[in-house]
């Protein structure tokens, strides 16, 4: 009997993996912002004033995806309709300064690294450490291994011990209480190794930039090799980023 029940469940499950992870633009997703070249009204600072993470600078209008939580407050506030959020999940970059979205700007992109491709292109083991993450980022990172995204197909997997890890994926704004644990995890990782900053909090402190319990000094000594924006980032944002960095698919 239980075999039949199992088979019925299996039949209901169908085939769920996304065959080509490069094409989906998730319906309804608030993703990569675009800023039109429409001129701002004189003296208008509506978008900057409503931004909860101070992600916007004016003259010319720029949006820092390292701070942006894609809440759309600026889109609603702008009388000229200059800012729009698209369902495009491709937002990550390998350089912090490339996260700045400009008027009529080009698409953001991670450039493949020959060195990363040679070392990690066929096998990448990642250790995740949450340091003040709200469980949004953690759930989306867990989702990378589910039946839809199935990141293991590229040889990219989570490992339990930092000893086995090539990449340290950080989420959260980095709390004072996790300062030592993050350092210990990093110190335990063998070379070659790199850091991924996952989510607005990890990239810039996000909503918690300057909060009493936050200590970001770990990042003073280690620059991330990959910045994955969002709050939390969509799993596809990470998938694009890591495959681009490793020069896979």
């Amino acid at each position: 009997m239980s075999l039949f029940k199992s088979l019925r469940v299996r039949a209901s499950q169908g085939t769920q993996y996304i065959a080509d992870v490069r094409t989906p633009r998730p319906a309804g997703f608030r993703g990569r912002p675009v800023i039109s070249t429409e001129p701002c009204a004189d003296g208008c600072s509506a978008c900057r004033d409503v931004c909860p993470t101070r992600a916007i600078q004016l003259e010319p209008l720029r949006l820092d995806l390292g701070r942006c939580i894609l809440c759309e407050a600026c889109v609603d506030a702008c009388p000229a309709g200059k800012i729009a959020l698209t369902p495009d999940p491709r937002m990550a970059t390998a350089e912090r300064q490339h996260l700045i979205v400009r008027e009529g700007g080009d698409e953001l992109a991670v450039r493949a690294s020959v060195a990363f491709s040679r070392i990690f292109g066929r096998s990448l083991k990642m250790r995740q450490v949450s340091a003040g993450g709200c469980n949004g980022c953690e759930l989306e990172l867990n989702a990378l291994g589910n039946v839809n995204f199935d990141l293991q197909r590229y040889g990219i997997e989570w490992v339990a011990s930092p000893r086995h890890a090539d990449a340290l994926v950080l989420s959260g704004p980095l709390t004072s209480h996790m300062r030592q644990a993050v350092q210990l995890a990093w110190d335990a990782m063998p070379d070659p190794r790199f850091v991924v900053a996952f989510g607005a909090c990890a990239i810039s402190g996000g909503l918690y930039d300057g909060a009493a319990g936050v200590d970001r000094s770990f990042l003073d000594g280690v620059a991330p090799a990959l910045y994955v924006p969002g709050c939390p980032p969509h799993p596809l944002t990470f998938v694009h980023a890591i495959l681009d960095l490793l020069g896979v698919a």
Partner: protein
Amino acid sequence: MSLVHRIAVDAIPSLEVRAWRDELLASRAAGARAITLYGKRHADTVTITAVLQAAGGSLEVSRTTVTVAHGYHELTSAWPALHCFERELHEQTGVRIAGHPWLKPIRFEGQRQAAMDDYPFYKIEGKEVHEVAVGPIHAGVIEPGSFRFMCAGEQVHHLEIHLGYQHRGVEALLLEGDPRHHASLVETIAGDTSVAHTWAYSAALESLAGCTIELPIEVARTVALELERIAMHLASLAGMAGDIGFLQGASTYGRLRTTAINTLMRLCGSRFGRTAVRPGGNGMQLPADLLPEIQASLDLLRTDLALIDERFLTSRTVQHRLRDTGVLSTAQALELGLVGMAARASGVHLDLRALATGAFAALPIEISTQSTGDCFARAQIRIAEIEASLGWLWTTVGQHPAWQRTRAPLPALAPSQLVIAMIEGWRGEVVHCLETGAAGELVHYKVQDPSLRNWMGLAIAVRGNEISDFPICNKSFDLSYCGHDL
């Protein structure tokens, strides 16, 4: 569906400390339960606020003011459910709480930050006794927390839970700037409970601003709240299935969770309900042409969940691993003041949705309880609640087939008021207490995630179990670290 209680600060009964203490204990004897207890320090004195829910359901607030040095005699021994509140009160204000059995800091905030690693855990001595320390970094992709097991052989004699690693300083941030502009921050207090927290925050502000919320907004918020409940219950079920090696459960519940969160994203733009609720309005929209897609998703969830639920609940491996594991009796749950889903799994009838207000007035939702209080009961509760929520959603979107986003800026907040707003999130009641000063400015903000009260339930449930059963026990409660640590 929020439970909101607003009272002018002047009208709060302020009692001499002994009378206050006696009255709290008398209310408890009369069947009241504790909602929260917290303090605010002014120079050398601390004003302590207690909020109880009387047996009839109404909220009662009382206050006392004591000096920091003199303090008051502890209540925890007589009323164990207050332990976390008194510990937090002592940590946040420094007030002396005489005779308290265990004033361990809740999250080592403020000046105590440096002492977190020096904290002396409970020690048990004996030939067969050994300790196992786990964390703060765990083996999976999960938030940090530290667990110290004191074991006799393979059995856990006692578990001491050591939290605070996620402490960011939320309550302090909430007092900065315009209180009406903190929705995004509130959404990350516990990022898996964004809808419930933001609703509690919004309901409190709306009460202070004298703003009435129309039924369509209530309906849309409740749809978001129930989708959040379904999604997170599915995440927990997938996690429990994974922890016992029942991989079909892990992959199927995981797949169906994707359907639930993507449905929420179709309605508000975020898989986690970010921007779904805003003070004075909401960010949920259901255009008429989207309705068939939403109905199809709900239908798929109902059909496919029926299959996997049947398989899960009757599977021998599931029963063998979850039944009689991590038992928390009704008496223990009541004594510890457990709330929400974990309390209901232990036979405690406690769910704010039973008040049948707001969108539940026209269409009540079925509330489930279980009696066994084990990991299996906590799985059964989730399965029953998902089914009830899906049925409710199905009927509701049929009756309200289209809604718009609404953003209405709130007027200024009323001065010198205390408001307590509660929402039944997926883990349990989320409580936000806001107090305004003479100019309508915010002078105090107390955030309470249900996890604050329920972590002790896990510590007690795991006693007498094998240490290898801890991951299942932990997942069956699925409590928030960041919501606790703030």
